[in-house]
C-alpha cells in the first residue's frame, strides 16, 4: 500500500503542507475560494515543535488493525478495501470523541466540514486525498513539501532505503582516513612546547 511517509528530520516547519491540505479538503479546492467558503477547511496534519524545537509533522498512520475503527460506535470509520486507507464518513460521524480516546497517535481533530454543513463538528483526519489518487496525482501535502519531509511511497521500501543510508553513513565514518582528523589547536601545541 502506498502511503504518505514522514521524515521528521527533514521538516523545517514551513506549514505549506497544512495550507495545501486545507485547500484540498475545501469545496472549491483553491486557496482564494477556500478562504471565502462558509465552512473554513481545516488541515488534517499538525506540525509540532519537537525536541530541540525541530519540527515534527504528525498525521494518521492508517494502522492495521485500526483502534479508531474498532471503537467507532457509529460505524463511520472504515478501511477502503482497495486503497487500504482508513477513512471517516462525515455523514455518519456523531462527534462522540471515541476515536480520539482510542488513537495512540493523537491525530484526530473535530471540525465542521462542507460536506455536512448542518453538523457542528465531525472527526477529521488524513484521508490521503482520494480524488488526487484517482487522478494519479500525489497527495496535496507531499506535493507541497519542498524539503522531502513528506514522501509518497511504500513504507517497506522507504524503511529499507533509510536503513541503507544509515549503514552508509556509519561505514563512511569508520573508513575515514586518520589524516582527516582535525589538527590540534595551536594554543595546545604552544603550551606543550613551553614546558
Amino acid at each position, binding site marked *: 500500500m502506498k502511503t504518505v511517509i514522514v521524515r521528521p528530520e527533514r521538516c523545517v516547519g514551513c506549514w505549506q503542507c497544512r495550507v495545501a491540505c486545507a485547500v484540498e479538503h475545501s469545496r472549491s479546492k483553491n486557496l482564494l475560494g477556500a478562504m471565502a467558503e462558509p465552512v473554513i477547511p481545516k488541515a488534517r496534519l499538525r506540525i509540532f515543535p519537537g525536541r530541540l524545537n525541530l519540527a515534527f509533522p504528525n498525521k494518521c498512520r492508517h494502522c492495521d488493525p485500526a483502534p479508531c475503527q474498532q*471503537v467507532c460506535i457509529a460505524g463511520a470509520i472504515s478501511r477502503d478495501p482497495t486503497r487500504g486507507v482508513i477513512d471517516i464518513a462525515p455523514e455518519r460521524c456523531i462527534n462522540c470523541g471515541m476515536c480520539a480516546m482510542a*488513537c495512540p497517535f493523537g491525530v484526530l481533530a473535530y471540525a465542521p466540514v462542507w460536506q455536512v454543513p448542518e453538523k457542528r463538528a465531525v472527526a477529521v483526519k488524513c484521508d490521503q486525498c482520494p480524488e488526487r489518487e484517482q487522478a494519479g496525482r500525489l497527495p496535496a501535502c507531499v506535493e507541497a513539501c519542498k524539503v522531502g519531509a513528506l514522501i509518497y511511497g511504500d513504507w517497506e521500501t522507504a524503511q529499507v532505503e533509510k536503513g541503507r543510508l544509515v549503514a552508509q553513513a556509519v561505514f563512511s565514518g569508520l573508513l575515514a582516513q586518520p589524516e582527516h582528523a582535525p589538527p590540534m589547536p595551536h594554543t595546545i601545541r604552544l603550551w606543550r612546547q613551553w614546558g
Partner: protein
Amino acid sequence: MHYVIIGASAAGLSAAETVRLLDPQGAITLISEEAIRPYRRPMLTYLLGREAGLDDIWLRPPSHFYKLGVRALLGEGVVQVDPQAKEVHLAGGRVVRYDRLLVASGAQPRLLGIPGENLAGVFTLRHLADWQKLEANLRAGAAVAVVGAGPVGLKAAEALVRRGQRVILVEAEAGPLPRLLDQTAGFLLKQHLSGLGVELYFETRPVAILGDGGRVRALVLADGRELAVEVVLLAVGVRSRLEFFQGTSLASDGPISVSSFLQTQYPEIFAAGDCTAVPDFFSGKPTSYQIWPAAVSQGQVAGANMVGAGRRYAGLLPQNSISIQGFKIISGGLLAPDPQRTEVWSSFDDKRGVYRRLLFQEGCLVGVTLAGEVADAGIYFQIMAQKLPVKALPVDLRSPDFHPGKLWG
C-alpha cells in the same frame, strides 16, 4: 465442536466472528432475545435526538449470519442453562446442546424501586424496542424527567433538548458521571448542560412517581419538591442478565466473575461483555464497567479462547468519552484512587475552557481527565496501558505545552 453464544450484541457478535475466523468448520449457534439483527446500542440516544436514522444503526448487513455460517436464533430467550448436562433451554421449549458456551447476555436497565414505576410514561432506554415505545409516547414539547446523569442519561437529555422537549435531569450524586469525573470536570459539564436549557437537580433522588389515570403526572423528589412531568426516563445504570443460571453454582446477584481468560468456574463456559466482572487493569480484582469497546474486545478474546487460543485479556481500563453539543470530556483510569498513594495534578485554562487532570501512582500514569481539548487523549491512554514510567518519557506530561512532537520528535 458446537459453539453456542448467548447474546448477539457487541460481545456476542465479535466472539462469533472470531470463532469463525479461527475455526472455519465448527458449528456456531447465536441466541438472542431480540428478534432483530445486531445493532449499535450506543446509537439509541442519537436515534432519539434524530441525529441518526434507523439505517445508521445496524452493525452488519442482513445476510451476515448466513455468509458467516452462523445459525442465528433471533427472538428466542434463554430460560435455563444446565452446566452439568451442557444444555441451553430456550423459551420456546427448544434445547440446544453445547461444547463451548459464551454468555454475553448483557444487562438490563435498573429500576429505582419507588412507587409509580409501572405507570404509563415511565421508560428506560436500552433496547431498540424501548426507543420505539418512547418515540410513540413522546408528545412534542412535553416535559421529560431524566433520572440519572450517567452516559445514557446525559446523552438522552441532550437528545431530548434537540427535539424541543423541556428536560429535567435528576442525579443522586453531586455531579454528572460521578464514577469518572472530579468536581471541576463535573462543573464544566454542568455548565454546558444548563447552557442547553436542561434543568438540573443534583444531590437529590426521586422518591415517587405520581400518576393521574394511569399516566405520569409528576416526579416527587426526596426534599419534597414535585416536578410536573409527562414522561420519566430512568437511566440509573444496568443489572447483569443472568437469570438463566438460577439453581446452578453460577447463580449470582451481580455480574459473573471470570478469570483473565474470561472463563467461568466451568472451563467450557466463557463470559464477556456487560454481564461480566472482568479483572481490572490495575488491581486485577473483578470489576464491571459497561462500555461498548470493552465488550467488543472481550468478545474477541473470549471467542479466541473458546477455540483454544489461550489469549489473556489485558484487563479492563475504565474509560469513556462524552460529548455534549460538541464539548467533549474524555476520562479514564483508576475509578477510586487511594488518596494516600496518588499524586493528583491538574490545570485549568478558564479562558479556553480546557481542563487537564492527571493521576500518578508509583511513577506511572494511572488516570487522566481531559475536557475541552481531547485530541491527545489516546496518547495518555497508551502511556497508561503500557505502564510506562513517566520519568523515562522525554517530556513531562504535566508541562503546559505537552504535545506528541515532544514525545516522538
